[in-house]
C-alpha cells in the first residue's frame, strides 16, 4: 500500500491528471497509470510519447501492451502483367490493430512459455492475423510479413518489444511512442504481473486518441453528412468561379 501511495505521489508530482479507477481496488498487487488518457491530434501533430507508470506489491515480471482500434485490412500484391504493374493478388485479414506496442521487464520468452505468449498475443509477431478471404495461390505468410513491414515502417508496430524499467524494486515505467500517423479511436492498455510464468494480476486502462481543430471538424463533417458537404463544396466552387469572373470583368 505504501508503494501505491508512493506511486500516486510520483504521478501527481509530474503533473498527471489521469488515475485509473482501478486504483481504488487495494487488494490487487498491480497498478498502472498513464501520463494522459486522451490525446488530441490537431493539424500540427507530429507524434508524441506518453509515460506508463505502475507499481507492484510483490516481485515479478511486468508485461504492458497497448492495442489500437481494430479493423479488417486488405493486403494486395502487384504483379507484372503486359508490362504494367497491377494489383492481382490479395488477402484480407480480420481485426488488425491499427497500433500495437508491447513492453516487458525481461525478454518475453523468459517470462512465460511460448504457448501463453501466443494465446495472449504478446509481441507483434504473435498477433493473430486471421485471413478471412484469399485471392491468391501464394503463401499467406508473405502477405502477413508485408503487413508487418508496412506497419513497422509507419512506426505503428515495433519488431522488438520495449523495456519496462523498474525505478526501484516495486515502481516501474515505460515510454509509449505514438507516431504522426497513429489511428484515432479507443486504445486498450493492459498491464500484467507474472510470477514464475503465472498471471497474478491484470490491469487495464483506456486511452482515447481523437482529431481536434478546424481540419478535424471538416473531415468529420465530410464523413457524417456527405450530402450537405457535397452541396457546400459545389456552392463554394460556384461562388469562387463567379467572383473570379466578376472581379476580372473589366479587364
Amino acid at each position: 500500500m505504501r508503494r501505491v501511495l508512493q506511486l500516486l505521489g510520483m504521478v501527481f508530482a509530474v503533473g498527471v491528471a489521469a488515475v485509473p479507477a482501478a486504483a481504488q481496488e487495494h487488494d490487487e498487487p498491480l497498478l498502472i497509470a498513464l501520463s494522459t488518457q486522451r490525446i488530441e491530434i490537431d493539424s500540427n501533430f507530429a507524434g508524441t510519447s506518453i509515460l506508463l507508470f505502475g507499481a507492484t506489491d510483490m516481485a515479478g515480471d511486468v508485461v504492458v501492451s497497448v492495442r489500437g482500434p481494430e479493423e479488417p485490412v486488405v493486403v494486395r500484391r502487384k504483379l507484372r502483367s503486359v508490362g504494367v504493374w497491377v494489383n492481382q493478388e490479395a488477402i484480407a485479414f480480420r481485426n488488425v490493430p491499427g497500433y500495437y506496442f508491447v513492453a516487458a521487464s525481461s525478454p518475453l520468452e523468459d517470462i512465460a512459455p511460448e504457448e501463453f505468449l501466443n494465446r495472449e498475443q504478446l509481441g507483434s509477431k504473435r498477433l493473430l492475423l486471421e485471413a478471412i478471404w484469399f485471392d491468391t495461390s501464394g503463401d499467406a505468410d508473405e502477405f502477413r510479413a508485408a503487413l508487418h513491414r508496412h506497419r513497422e515502417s509507419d512506426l505503428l508496430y515495433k519488431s522488438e518489444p520495449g523495456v519496462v524499467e523498474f525505478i526501484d524494486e516495486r515502481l516501474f515505467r515505460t515510454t509509449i511512442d505514438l507516431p504522426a500517423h497513429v489511428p484515432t479511436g479507443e486504445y486498450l492498455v493492459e498491464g500484467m504481473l507474472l510470477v514464475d510464468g503465472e498471471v497474478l494480476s491484470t490491469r487495464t486502462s483506456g486511452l482515447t486518441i481523437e482529431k481536434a481543430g478546424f481540419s478535424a471538424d471538416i473531415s468529420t463533417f465530410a464523413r457524417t453528412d456527405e450530402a450537405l458537404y457535397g452541396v457546400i463544396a459545389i456552392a463554394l466552387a460556384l461562388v469562387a468561379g463567379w467572383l473570379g469572373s466578376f472581379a476580372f470583368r473589366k479587364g
Partner: protein
Amino acid sequence: MEIYLPIAELSANALILLVLGGGVGLLSGMFGVGGGFLMTPLLIFLGVTPSVAVGTGTNLIIASSVSGTMAHWRRGNVDFLIGALISCGGAGGAWLGAFLFKLLSDAGQIDLVISLSYVLFLGVVGCLMAVESVRATVRRQRTARRKAHHHIWIHGLPLKLRFRRSRLYVSAIPAFVLGFLMGIIASIMGVGGGFFMVPAMIYLIGMPTAVVVGTSLLGIIVISSVSCFAHAINNNNVDIILGLLLAVGAVIGAQYGTRLGGRIRAEHLRGLLALMVLAVGGRLAYSLVVMPDDPFAVAPLWGN
C-alpha cells in the same frame, strides 16, 4: 502558411497551392483548355492519393468552368438547348462514373484505372496535337478546303430538334450520348473533358465553332457538379480546402493566361501544349511500368 488538408490528410503550404492553381490556370487560359487533365496528375505527383486528386479535381473544375461560361455567355456564345441535353446525359454519366469509381476502388484497381486512362488520353491527344501543330507550322500559307457540311449516319437519327443558336436541325440523341460519355470520363479522371467534347461537338453534331466552347463549358459545370456531389457521397474524396485554394489560383491565373495566349501564334501554342500533355502522360506511364519499391500495399477493407 502551412495548412492541413483534412481529406487529403497531409500538410501543405497554402501559398504554394495558390501558385500551383495559378500556374495551371495560366496554362489553361493560354491554351483554352480546362486544366483538369494537368491538375489531377500534378496532385498525384505531389503525393495526394489518386482518389482524392480526382474528387478534388471535380470541385476545382466547377469553379474554373463557371468563370469561363460567364465570359462566353456575355458574348452570346452559349447554346442553352444543346447545353441542357449534354447536361442531362452528363448528369447520368457522372453519377454512373462515380459509382464505377467506388467499385474499382473497393477492388483495389482505381489507382491503376486512373493512371491508365490518363496515359491513354494524354498520349492520344498529345500525339494528335503534336502532329497537327507540326503540319500547321510547315504549311501555314496553304488553306485547306473543308466541306461546310458533310452528312454522316448521325444526321439520320430520330428526335430532331431545332437549335436556334447553333442554327441546326439535328437529332437530340448525339448531344445526350456525348454528355453521358463525358460524365463517365469526368468522374473517373477528374477532368472537365473539354479537349474531348469540343472536337466531338464540331465534327459529330456539326455545331459552329463560335458556340462550341461556351456550350461545352456549360455542360461541364453541370457534369462536374454532379460528379463532385457523387464523389462526396460515395467516395469521401473531395477536399474543400485543397479545391478552394487551387480554384482561387486557377481563376486568377486563367485571366492572365488568356491575355498571354493572344500574343503567341496558335500553332506554336498547340505545339507547346502537346509537349506538356505528352510529358505528363509519359511520367504517368513510367510509374506504371517501373518496378515498384514494394509490390505489396496495405489498405483498410471497406464494406466488410
